[in-house]
Every structure is written in C-alpha cells, then in structure tokens.
C-alpha cells in the first residue's frame, strides 16, 4: 500500500534539513520554486480559475489574497494534485511537471496545509506523520521520531510525538500539519487560510514559524482573505478575484511601503481606486468597522442563565454552573476555541438540550420546562451554525424552510392543511427583505449557496417579533459581502432592543460586533471583557485558559 522507493528511505533518517538552504535564493534572477502558467479550471457553471499566472521564489512568502469563492482554494488544489487543470501547466524548479495526484505533488516537493485540518484525530502525532510516508511495510517509529524532532526544531516548536492528535490545541495541530507537509523534504509550502481557526497567540506563533521556515530557503504560498495578514506576512502579494489575478505587488514594492500605504494600495487594486473608503470591505480592513456609537440597554436583562449545567455530547464540553445575563439592545459575544461548550450553551438556550441544573429566564420568567416551539413563540430564536444539517431541510422549497419552525400555525396551516398561498406570500416578502438570491420561492433550498442559505435562516429566525436571538458562528464560511450583510442585520436587531448573543471563534468578528465578550473555556465562563482598547489581548489570554482576573 505504500509505494515509496528505497531512495526515500534514506531521506527519512537523514540529519540534513528537509530543504536545502540556498543562500542566493532571494536574489533576483534565480529560478522560481513554483510557477503556474495559464492555469484554467472550469466547474459546471463556474470558471474557478481563468488563465492564472503566478510564481514564487525560494525564501519568499507569496500571499494570495481574495474573497471566498475567488478561486484560491481551487488553484491550490490544482497545485497539490487534488484537481487537474483544464488548461495551462506547472513548473517546479524550472521544469515542466504534471501533478496528477497528491502523492506526485508531494514527491515533487509541494507540501500543502489545508484550511480544515486533515490530521486524523484518533491517531497519535507520530502515526499521522507516518501515514502514507512510511517506507516499507513495518512502521519505522524510531526514524520517524528523530525526523520529527529535527523538523520541530526547524519550526521552533515543541511537539509530543505520542499525544493523541485530537487532544491537541488547533495551533499545535497546525504545527503538526506543517511538519507533515515538510516531511518528505518539500521546497514549497502552501497554507490555505491557516489563521481561520487560531487564537491571536496561535497566529503570532504561526508567524514566527513562517519566518523561521522562510529563512531556511522554503518558498511559501499563504492564502488568506484577511488583508492585514497579507500585509504582515507577504513578500509578494497577488490578488485574486472571480478566478483571475487582478493585481500583483512585487517584493520591492511591498518592502518599500509602510503597512498602511500597502493596505490602501491593495484595496485600490481589489476594488478600484474609489473603493478605498467603501465600508463593505470591512472584513478586509482590520482598522475599519469597529463598533460606533454605543446605544442604550434595557435595565432588566431579557435573558438570564443562572448556574446552568448541561451535558456535552461526542467528547465536546457541556456547560457547568454557567451564569450570564443579556440586556435588551446588548450584544454579548461568546469567544473561545471550538468545542469548549459553545454548542451546549446555544442548544440549552434554544431548548434543544435539557439543562441538568440551574434556571433559564426569559424576560424574568423561568422557561426551563418549555420546548423549542414554545420558546420560539415567546421570541427566543437560535441561528444554528449547522446550516445544512439542523438549519434547513435541503430537499424542501425555500418557502417551506422559511416557515419550518411554525408548522401547524396559522396563517400557514389551517385546520391541519397547508395553505401554500399564505406560505408563498410570506416567503416572497422575506426573500425580498433579506435579499435571498433564489430563482423562485419554490426552489429547493439545498441548491442555494451557503450565503443564501444563511440569509434564509436569518429571515426565518429574525422575523415574527424576536426578543432574544442566539447566533452560533453566524458568518462562518461566508463570502465578504454576505458577512457584512449578516453583521449589519445583527447590529440592526440589537438597535431595535433585541438581546443578542453572538457565539464565534473569529475574534475579529466579536470585537467588531460585541458590547461585552464572555470567554468560554471548558464549559465555563473564564471571564467577561468589556469591548474597548486592549480587549483583544485580554480575550486572547482567556481563550487559551489563563486565569480570570
């Protein structure tokens, strides 16, 4: 099952660095580590990549910047051998190559770190690294252990080889991913949205790892949709839009401009000169879109949790003795690494999970005993993060999904029978109001894009007089424009006096939206931080489990 030749056997145990440090690499005129020439890839209905030309030199970081759906991930899948391009070719170290499988890509020295971690949580770190790379049939653990230590040293991190991978933090797992990508001596490292799951500390660590790797002569391609990361990390910045490279800024320009000048330059390239001030690029501008005027909150909290506990499922944390209160008009952010009880908290409030202890109060009255539908009618709403699973019924029409939580209620149901006219009328109104891009209200919702499905969910939960709304990762995986629209809706809701909870793993988002941020750690509130200057660092500390002040 493992076809590695004997030549690779010697490679594994070799004490040399996995990639040769080439002293003159960064000098101009040398051969690019990787060159993409005229790459085109068409999926049914979409041109994902349209004649893309790119090159990256050894010892250089190329930042590939673009919105979700701009074709970044497709391009990298082509480079790593998961997809074949329809047109164009790839040169590695000056030679034309065909990368027809991930194994071929790796053998050519192209290592890939995917956006979603590809490590197998039930295996140990060492087993994950040996997977697909072990020479011969019998596992050579000792050699692998030595090799792991060398690579960990190159990265400047400490790694426990025998830890079960799923038990490590996301930042640590990402280090393992990078080590795995470099395992067979890669000369090019591709990182796809590597910061999306990390804490601020994790991001800082990743940056120092990249600086180390760059210094050892590796060519790095860093894919991101966050402008400030591109500015901080890139030597060369290429901007992708609708499958095309719309601009490229070379290292001499990148290094001669100040960070803010560079940001302006990039925004101008992306959206045209006049767009530098456009507010809906908020996600791309780290310094823009912070909370503006603070509004007034109701005096009594609309939603209160008092010493609430609930069990976790599938190895995730539940919540224990958790208390919080949200006033009308207030946005409470819930930060924390995924799996620290976010889902339990959201479901306990929504009524999908029973609280094993404590009291939940909605506008002063206890609602522990009420089922989901009763809470829904009282104005307690939940926008799930599992859009495709529990959020919608995919084979059902958009219209039906919009009234899914009101099954049996008038005016959509009359004496048990569906009133399609009433449903369709309401659906058309909501589709207009929330700008859901769908051919008709009768289209199956599974056919819509993630962004439009999220809009439909918002339409369903935010209509019919909401009082308290819980958003679980409301913008996860959406494109920039939908993100801006979703955040605008959340602010609007709060301005109208709705008590709002936003659960998110994206710290930028919480800073952008919240009045206060509570940090969830191992099922408990590790601390609550008033949003303001310095909040980000404080929250970051709490996220990784530092003691509350």
């Amino acid at each position: 099952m493992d076809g590695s030749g004997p030549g690779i056997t010697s490679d594994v145990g070799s004490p040399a660095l996995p990639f040769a440090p080439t002293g003159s690499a960064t000098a101009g005129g040398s051969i690019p580590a990787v060159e993409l020439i005229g790459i085109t890839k068409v999926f049914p209905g979409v041109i994902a990549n349209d004649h893309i030309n790119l090159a990256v030199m050894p010892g250089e970081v190329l930042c590939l910047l673009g919105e979700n759906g701009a074709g970044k991930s497709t391009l990298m899948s082509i480079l790593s051998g998961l997809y074949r391009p329809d047109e164009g070719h790839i040169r590695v170290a000056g030679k034309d190559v065909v990368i027809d499988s991930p194994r071929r890509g790796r053998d050519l020295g192209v290592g890939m770190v995917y956006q979603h971690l590809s490590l197998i949580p039930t295996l140990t770190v060492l087993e994950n690294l040996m997977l697909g790379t072990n020479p011969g049939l019998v596992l050579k653990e000792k050699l692998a252990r030595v090799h792991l230590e060398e690579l960990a040293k190159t990265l400047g991190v400490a790694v426990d080889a025998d830890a079960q991978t799923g038990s490590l933090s996301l930042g640590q797992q990402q280090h393992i991913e990078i080590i795995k990508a470099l395992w067979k001596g890669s000369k090019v490292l591709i990182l796809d949205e590597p910061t999306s799951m990390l804490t601020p500390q994790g991001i800082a660590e990743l940056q120092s790892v990249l600086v180390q790797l760059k210094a050892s002569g590796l060519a790095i391609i860093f894919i991101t949709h966050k402008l400030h990361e591109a500015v901080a990390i890139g030597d060369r910045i290429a901007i992708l839009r609708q499958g095309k490279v719309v601009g490229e800024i070379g290292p001499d320009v990148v290094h001669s401009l100040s960070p803010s000048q560079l940001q302006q330059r990039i925004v101008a390239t992306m959206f045209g000169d006049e767009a530098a001030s456009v507010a809906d690029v908020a996600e791309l501008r780290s310094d823009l879109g912070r909370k503006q005027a603070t509004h007034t909150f109701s005096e009594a909290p609309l939603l209160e949790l008092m010493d609430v506990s609930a069990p976790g499922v599938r190895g995730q944390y539940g919540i224990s003795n958790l208390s919080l209160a949200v006033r009308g008009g207030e946005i409470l952010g819930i930060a924390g690494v995924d799996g620290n009880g976010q889902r339990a908290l959201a479901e306990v409030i929504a009524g999908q999970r029973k609280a094993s202890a404590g009291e939940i109060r909605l506008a002063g009255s206890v609602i522990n005993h009420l089922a989901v539908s009763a809470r829904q009618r009282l104005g307690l709403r939940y926008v799930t993060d599992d859009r495709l699973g529990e959020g919608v019924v995919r084979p059902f029409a958009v219209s039906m999904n919009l009234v899914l939580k009101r099954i049996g209620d008038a005016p959509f149901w009359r004496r048990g029978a569906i009133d399609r006219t009433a449903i369709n009328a309401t659906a058309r109104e909501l589709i207009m109001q929330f700008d859901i891009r769908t051919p008709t209200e009768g289209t199956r919702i599974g056919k819509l894009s993630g962004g439009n499905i999220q809009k439909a969910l918002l339409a369903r939960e935010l209509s019919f007089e909401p009082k308290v709304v819980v958003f679980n990762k409301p913008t996860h995986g959406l494109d920039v424009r939908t993100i801006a629209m979703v955040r605008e809706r959340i602010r609007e809701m709060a301005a109208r006096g709705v008590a709002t909870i936003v659960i998110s793993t994206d710290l930028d988002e919480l800073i952008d939206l919240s009045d206060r941020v509570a940090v969830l750690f191992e099922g408990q509130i590790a601390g609550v931080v008033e949003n303001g200057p310095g909040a980000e660092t404080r929250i970051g500390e709490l996220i990784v489990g530092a003691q509350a002040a």
Partner: protein
Amino acid sequence: MSELLTPTFLTAFVASGILAGIPLLFAALGETIAEQSGVLNVGLEGMVLSGAFAGFLGTLATGDIWVGLLLGGLVGLIVSGFMVVFCVRLGLDQIVVGISIVLTAEGATSLLHGAMFGKSYPRLDAIPELKIPFLGDIPILGGSLFTQPAPVYAALVLVAIVGWIFRRTSAGLSLRAAGERPDSLDAAGVSVVTVRTIAELTCGALAGIGGAYMAIVGAGTFVPFLTNGMGFIAIVIAMLGRGRAWGPVLGALLFGMSMSLSTALQLFGIAIPVDVVQMLPFVSVMVVLVLFTRQSRLPAALGLPYLRGAR
C-alpha cells in the same frame, strides 16, 4: 444440576463452544478489517454461506479439509468482489448492496444444493484433532481448548497477525485512516479505493473460510441456510470489538459458549421448551448489544462511499 458439572461434561461443553465460535471468529475478524477501512460489509452472511457451500463441496470431492477451507475462502473472496465493484469502486449504498448479496447467496446455495443433492445430505468424515503437548493434559481445558482441529490454532495465530498489522505496519495505519478520514489518506498520497478493496477482499476470504469451517468441521455436512444468521452476529461482534483484533475472540467465545450451552441443555433434557433453549444464543446477542452498544466506537467514515473531488 450438580451432576452436570463433571469434567467430562465441562470438557465437551468448552470444546463445542469453541467449535461453534471459530466460524464466528473468522467472520468477525474479517468484518473488523473491512469496518476499520470504512466498509460496512452487510453482505457478510452471504459470504459465510457461500464459503460454507464451497468448502463442503471441496472437502466432499477431495476428502481434504484444507482444500475445502481454501475453496471456501476463494468463493468468499469472489462474492466480496461484488461489494468491491458496487460499493468501493462505484460508491453505491453499502447496506442495499450488502442485503442483496445475502439474499442472492441464500437463493443460489439452496438452488445449487437442491440441484446437486436433491433430498440427500451426504456427511463428511470427522476431522482429526491436534493435541498440543503438555497443555493438552490440563484437566478440562486440555481436552477442550488444546485438543482441537488444526484450523483453530491457525485462527488464533491469524488474530495475532492482524493485530500486529493494525498497530505496527503502514498497511494497518492506512487501513485505520481510510475508515476515519479517507480524504486525509488520499491527501497523504495513498489510494483509498485500493486500501478498501484489499480490506474488503480479505474480509470476504476470511468469512468464506469461517463458513467452510462451519460446514466441514462443525456440521460435517451442508444444508440450505446452514449459517442461520451467523454472519449478522459476526457484524455485531466486530462492532463491539472497537476495532481491536482480539475483540472477535472474546465475542466468538461468548456466543460459541451460549450455543454450546443451548445444545447441552437439550441433551440433558432440562425441562425447558426446546424453542426457548434454541433462542439462547440470539438472546445473548441482544443482551450484549443492550449492555455494550454505548461502548462501541465505530470509524467516523464507516459506510460512507469515498469519491475523490466530489463536489
């Protein structure tokens, strides 16, 4: 009841428990391999039954049990080829294909048996037992555990080998990865389809050998529907084994013993209706299921077809 607990009785009881458990052991070991790779081999019963019939024919024709076992394994492997083509290669639903394999095998073996033997049920000769020196002299266990036909010892050695492959080889690592995160395995440059194909064919061969053993050594003959749901019990054992190679040993022993107990109770004419006694093995399956299902941990990608680049 005390007259039952004589050494002779206990020896016979343990021996027949092992006899009944060995086919389960082979089948459950195969199923464990398939499940670790992410294939839920629902067609196991069909493979066991086909193997039983083929093994019976092989031994009947040659008088050699090894020819029978080999032929049983070969036919089991061929039958599992259907799972490979339809589920692993084409990505069809594993449960649907598996059930149709069971039904087809039941029909085909009954039909062929009827056509070849009519209403006669030829018997095979008894199989020589291999007594292990010294260990074979221990009271009760010596006469049961250590005086068994050679394939029993082969089965136990096989368990050890499979356990070693799971933990200590790159093949085992790829196998577990294919069942947990096939996309990761693919990205690591190992073909998921190849891994699953090999696992499924191995499973078919082991199930076939298990069936052949049942016909040749256990029953000494073949009758239509000989296996009587044993393949399904093996699936349950594999699921409760949490992916460990020695899991099937415990499971097979437990169910073998309960079958043996039901035979013993009938022999001694205990005043319980025969139907109730015969239910015992199946009741024990249900009890174990109820007690231990929560502990079973199945591979994350079990039963899910893997097609690269599907979007």
